[in-house]
């Protein structure tokens, strides 16, 4: 069985596993945190999930790659927003990690690390699902 077949069969399952791993890291951080984790820290993960959902709404064949036609500009705008939201959520989670490591009275470094891992895994899961789901 060649790689593309294997990818199409097991890709969505792997995507689900990676998505689950990302969110379970965050659950672990919230459960094991000695301080109350403020809602602000939940936001990067939530927005990463929204971004992953957004770019999975676009079917692959719909994207027209010719750069000079009018093309499907709405689709490309939607994808652009999805990318912006995903990168902002990633940057925000890294920023919160740095804040957690500097400010000793807030959530611990593990909370910040788990937030970054959550964003990364959720976005990777969205990518895997996008590349692997057959049409």
């Amino acid at each position, binding site marked *: 069985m060649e790689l593309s*077949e294997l990818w*199409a*069969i*097991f890709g*969505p*399952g*792997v*995507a*689900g*596993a*990676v*998505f*689950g*791993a990302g969110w*379970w890291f965050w*659950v*672990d951080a919230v*459960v*094991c945190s000695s301080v109350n984790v403020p809602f602000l820290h939940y936001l990067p993960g939530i927005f990463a999930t929204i971004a992953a959902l957004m770019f999975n709404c676009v079917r692959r064949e719909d994207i027209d790659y010719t750069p000079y036609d009018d093309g499907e500009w709405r689709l490309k705008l939607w994808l652009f927003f999805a990318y912006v939201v995903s990168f902002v959520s990633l940057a925000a989670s890294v920023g919160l990690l740095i804040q957690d490591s500097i400010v000793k009275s807030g959530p611990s470094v593990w909370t910040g690390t788990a937030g970054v891992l959550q964003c990364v895994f959720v976005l990777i899961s969205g990518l895997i*699902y996008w590349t692997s*789901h*057959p*049409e």
Partner: protein
Amino acid sequence: MMADLLGYLRNCLQTRKLAVLAILVSGGIVLQILACALYNNWWPMLSVIIYVLLPMPLMFLAGSDGYSLLSESDNGWVTATKFLTGASAIGSIAVPAILKHAGVIGWGALVMELSSYFIFLLAILVYIRMNDDGDDYNFF
């Protein structure tokens, strides 16, 4: 007579696989309950909820064809089923790990939980092998 003998051997092999399957499943259940009973701490039963959740997408969304999970499929529901099954599979590993990290259960309970999970996984693989072999023989 040779055909009879072959048929008998085939049946014997099938029965042995069934016995192995039964042993694996009951071993998994025993380990799961031992993880709670030996330490008098019933928190690990939380992962039973995830075990129950695991086959639900398959039962409700993928219809009667259980092997659509192992084949490429155009149906959007089948890919969603694979996604949810993958997420629940990770959940069964994550819940004991989180319980251990939070200090609610000890190392022994964690090891028993995880080995119970892998035994169940092995049982599912044996079941799939068994059904595949059965189909191949029947095509003759």
